[in-house]
């Protein structure tokens, strides 16, 4: 009887991690096809991938877009959450719904819509336009996280700061934002991970400089290769690093 829960756990994690595990395993394949039998381990494909300027360039583009778009989304989300949580505004419920609604819209629709608008406006497609798309999808999330954490328990500290002579911008920078640091970090890390491997919006809104998922897609068209497994493993590694960083900084502080 004791074995049954463990079996269930093993099956559940197997279901979740088997595909990723297979991908990582065959990135160490020695021959040119990422299919059994496994004949590695070899770092041949990693060497090749890291020497490929297109791939490393795309990787840096992805990081830049993810970090830039997340920073903007978190800043806008923070200001919106502060405004709606701390001030009685007309139609605040409607504003909240409109801020969160893009979460429900498919990335394809967001991407297509932006593509039409941006081309009509005559803006060339670039990493900046992809970043704009990522701000659109990350802002609702950042807003929702920050709004939920802006409890009334911080309100008296803000009142105290005002009472002690702080202006509104000083209250925001010196009191509100530092008190919300864990939520701000959470919103930022989540935005980065979502933006980091987002494909469809980046695909639609970039042209010459592309992000890593778009690069992977264009490589996929020439068929399976352990190179792709190696890139995928690097992408996965970066995501894992982000999660561990998040765990070490935000969650540990919260537990204290």
């Amino acid at each position: 009887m004791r074995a049954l829960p463990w079996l269930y756990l093993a099956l559940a994690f197997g279901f979740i991690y088997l595909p990723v595990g297979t991908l990582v395993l065959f990135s160490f394949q020695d021959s040119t096809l990422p299919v059994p039998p496994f004949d590695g381990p070899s770092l041949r494909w990693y060497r090749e991938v890291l020497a490929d300027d297109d791939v490393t360039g795309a990787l840096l583009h992805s990081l830049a877009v993810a970090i830039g778009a997340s920073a903007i989304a978190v800043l806008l989300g923070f200001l919106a959450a502060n405004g709606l949580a701390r001030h009685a505004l007309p139609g605040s419920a409607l504003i909240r719904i409109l801020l969160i609604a893009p979460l429900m819209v498919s990335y394809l629709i967001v991407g297509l819509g932006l593509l039409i608008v941006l081309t009509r406006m005559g803006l060339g497609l670039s990493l900046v336009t992809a970043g704009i798309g990522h701000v659109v999808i990350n802002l609702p999330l950042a807003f929702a996280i920050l709004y939920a954490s802006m409890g009334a328990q911080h309100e008296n500290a803000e009142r105290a700061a005002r009472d002690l002579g702080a202006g509104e911008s000083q209250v925001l920078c010196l009191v509100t934002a530092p008190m919300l640091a864990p939520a701000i970090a959470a919103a930022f890390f989540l935005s980065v991970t979502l933006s980091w491997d987002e494909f469809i919006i980046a695909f639609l809104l970039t042209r010459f400089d592309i992000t890593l998922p778009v690069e992977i897609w264009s490589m996929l068209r020439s068929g399976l290769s352990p190179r792709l497994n190696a890139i995928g493993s690097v992408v996965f590694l970066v995501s894992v690093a982000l999660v561990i960083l998040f765990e070490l900084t935000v969650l540990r502080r919260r537990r204290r």
Partner: protein
Amino acid sequence: MTASVTLDGVSHAFGTFHALRDITLEVGAGEYVALLGPSGCGKTTLLSVLGGFVMPDAGGVRIGGVDMTRVPPARRPTTTMFQDYALFPHMSLRDNVAFGLRMAGMGRTERHRRADAKLDLVGLRADGAKRPHELSGGQRQRVALARALAIEPDVLLLDEPLGALDLKLRRAMQDELKAIQRLVGTTFIHVTHDQEEAMAIADRIVVMNAGRIEDEGPPARVYRMPASLFAADFMGEMNHIPATVSATGAETPLGTLPAAGLVPGPATVCIRPEALCQPGGALSLGEAEVRDATFFGTHIRAHLSPKAAPEMVLVAHLSPGEVPSPGAVVSLTLSAEALCIFEGDSA
């Protein structure tokens, strides 16, 4: 460093709820005033009006003779100490205390020197580098006090500052607050619902109920000779004896008591439990039988049934000694000053 406060006909409503009705109050410079009342009586709203967090619907606020009715909190010579202390969790104690000085544009060295001096005042000089979460409730309280005093306000507003502390710490902090107030000379206005706290700490008590001031005066006077039945009950336990005022005095089931200057009609006689059995008192209400008695250390609390009205139950605090057994007879004597008579029916 200190200033007088004048409230002139202040009224305020939240929607249809009248939190303050025509409040007029004078507080002298350097005075320690307690605003006392049950929750919902308007005392916290009144404090918010003084601090500038609520703009009253009508009336005026003057601090040190200057009209402050529409001045925002930051530009008033007041600071508020919030009930939950409202310390900045991400700053050290020194930075917390120095925050107001930093906002005033004071340089780091000078403001840290002053913050350390204020931490010294509240006995936390050695802990300047700690964070608020490392402190106990009483210590956070002290930091909040130091932070509020650091900008040297004329008037300090305290919103139930001791509400979250246990009883023993509370009594210790009361003494400390009082001592610090004497030292700095700042006008303190302190909101509380604890009448013992108000009596222990304040030069003057303002009893509030339903948005109005029921009574105001020195603690002993408000306790012994309250201006209204509400104030009488709120300041401590009270025996109510129904009475009818006529030309001869207040006629009660226990005899007629002197009631000079009262309008004839129904009235309520109020007597504190500790005043009820004072040997050698000038007034007598006859004898009473002890129903039960409990030893409380400083006194014996007894329920008494007067012989003249056996269905009535009076509470008396007898001097500690032999605990009387049920059925024992005591005489109800009291001094004339211990008697309060209010017009109208007893509640």
